[in-house]
């Protein structure tokens, strides 16, 4: 790779995104000076809102593409999926950084953020979440360092990093497995607060399982969008092939869900016509059952529009699920009222705009996406065959 200067082309769309980011920064500064109540609609009945419910819970879940791809490609050595591996890692890393920034914005006494590292509140799920997310972000930076030093030449450091990569890979799957499930375990404590359609002792399983099967769908979406943005051919065969992973995992998810509801004797609550039951049915039918069917049909999954639409449903479904856990399922016991303020929404928009901007910058300056001439015949490479360049 020849040396070249850092590039970042400014387009109208990117200017708009930058504007969103600046707005979010200004609102955040205001929040730090005047308190959470000055910009958010959070209240004593609804202590967690958009930033925790969406930016943190969904952000981390959507970053699940990082660990599921790492498991499939690097641990199981299914190397036909290599073309998407680095992009998945990148999205995951940025997703985690954004989640951490959101968390920092949301905590009231932020200068105390380091306390949990030294006060061993190990009986708290949040303790595990906090440790795992912090460590995993560092691990991802290490993994990314391997790529970083391909661009920024620093042979000695790269050598050390490269030799230890298997370690980072394994730990980089164990940690997210733990905290993706822990994000669910957070709600185990809400035994009398969260609606029984979502509350379960195995909610950690549902969280980690869905974060994992969401991975391939997320990779499909960002791969398709990136291909369109950069006018390249989308890696359709990889996408179609990966749907098997998601489809089978979703079938297991659905079966376990039904068994769990029956075991706790609340299955009939799904059909009692309440707001919660309707939201639950939408979640299960539109966002679980429908994508399973779409993935099962070759006529749909082998077409770009088909695999893309089904993947959007899968991703939207996981977001829908998290929203149901944080908001729909808690509404009755919490009482009161919460809807995010304009300021909260602006900060969230700014966060996700930053994600897109950073993604574009990194992809345009670091070796993340396969070289163009490889893409066309990538699908014809059998697993295990070496790529000659």
């Amino acid at each position, binding site marked *: 790779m020849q040396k070249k200067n850092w590039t970042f082309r400014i387009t109208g769309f990117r200017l708009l995104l930058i504007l969103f980011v600046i707005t979010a920064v200004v609102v955040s500064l205001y929040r730090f000076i005047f308190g959470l109540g000055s910009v958010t609609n959070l209240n004593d009945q609804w202590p967690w809102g958009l930033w925790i419910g969406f930016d943190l819970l969904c952000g981390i879940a959507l970053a699940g593409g990082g660990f599921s791809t790492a*498991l499939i490609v690097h641990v199981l050595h299914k190397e036909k999926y290599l073309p998407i591996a680095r992009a998945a890692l990148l999205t995951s890393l940025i997703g985690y950084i954004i989640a951490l920034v959101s968390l920092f914005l949301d905590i*009231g006494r932020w200068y*105390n953020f380091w306390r949990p590292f030294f006060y061993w509140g190990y009986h708290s799920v949040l303790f595990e979440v906090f440790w795992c997310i912090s460590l995993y972000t560092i691990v991802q930076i290490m993994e990314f360092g391997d790529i970083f030093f391909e661009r920024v030449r620093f042979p000695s450091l790269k050598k050390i990093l490269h030799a230890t990569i298997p370690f980072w890979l394994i730990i980089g799957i164990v940690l997210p497995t733990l905290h993706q499930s822990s994000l669910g375990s957070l709600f185990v404590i809400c035994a009398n607060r969260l609606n029984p359609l979502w509350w379960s002792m195995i909610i950690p399983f549902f969280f980690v399982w869905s974060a994992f099967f969401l991975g391939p769908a997320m990779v499909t979406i960002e791969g398709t969008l990136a291909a369109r943005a950069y006018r390249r051919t989308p890696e359709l065969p990889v996408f179609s092939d990966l749907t098997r992973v998601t489809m089978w995992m979703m079938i297991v998810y659905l079966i376990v869900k039904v068994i769990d509801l029956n075991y706790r004797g609340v299955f009939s609550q799904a059909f009692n016509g309440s707001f919660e039951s309707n939201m639950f049915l939408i979640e299960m039918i539109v966002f679980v059952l429908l994508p399973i069917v779409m993935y099962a049909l070759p006529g749909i999954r082998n077409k770009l529009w088909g695999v893309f639409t089904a993947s959007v449903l899968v991703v939207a479904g996981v977001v829908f699920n998290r929203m149901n856990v944080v908001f729909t399922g808690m509404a009755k016991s919490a009482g009161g009222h919460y809807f995010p303020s304009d300021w909260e929404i602006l900060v969230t928009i700014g966060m996700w705009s930053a994600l897109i901007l950073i993604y574009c910058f990194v992809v345009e300056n670091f070796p*993340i996406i396969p070289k163009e001439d490889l893409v066309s015949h990538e699908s014809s490479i059998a697993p295990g065959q070496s790529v000659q360049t």
Partner: protein
Amino acid sequence: MTRNMGALVDITKCIGCESCVVACRLYNGLEPDPKDGDRPAQGGNIELAPNKWTVIQSHRIKKDGKQIRRFVKQQCFHCLEPACASACFAKALQKTPEGPVVYNEKLCVGCRYCMIACPFGILRFEWDKPFPRVLKCQMCLGRLTDGQMPACAGVCPTGAITFGERDKIVEEAKKRLASNPGLYTGQIYGLEEAGGTSWLYISDVPFEQLGFKTDVPKKPIPEYTWQVLRWTPHIFVGWGALLTGMYLYTKRRAVVHEEEGMYAPVDDDEK
């Protein structure tokens, strides 16, 4: 030395005078809201707030065809095994041996997971402050260690609040229920709720009509979490070992790719 203290609120004896509310505010130095004016009493349906650690809520209920009024003193229940303290990852909330569940603002991160965790919805957050605290009744820990009773219990003119060691308080509650079964409902709220609380209530009106949460599990809430959380080390080691095994096994079969050179920065200038 005082040990695991508790309090019994007899709802049949409370007249809603709000002396306890005033005593709480004075002892704990809680500033009243400017909009409340100088009125010491709030007149009924006031919610707990960062500066209101105890409140009286009035309920109009139909009993035996008659309209009656009952007053419920609200404050932290001080669970024997508090969910809030188990949820705190910085140990800012702790159960003391004397009974109170107390908050240490120096350690608090302000994550509000305690508020999510509390089965009674008691904790309040200072939303308007740049460095907000989570506030609630501290059961006057300072007075307890001096051998005194909490400020609110000390001023109650009708004897609606009985204070003492929790075991004795439970006995007292049972005695009252037994001595007048026609009056009381026969239930002691807080005896088993969330595994038991330091503040107990008896009443002549069913608790669900007085705004009490009746769906609180009988099991200590922290046990739910611990049932899940205790698997963490096993998953860490087991899953890590399994992954390492799979990594080594499949690595032998796969020809290792030379990854470098496969990828390149996207050339965005061509467009």
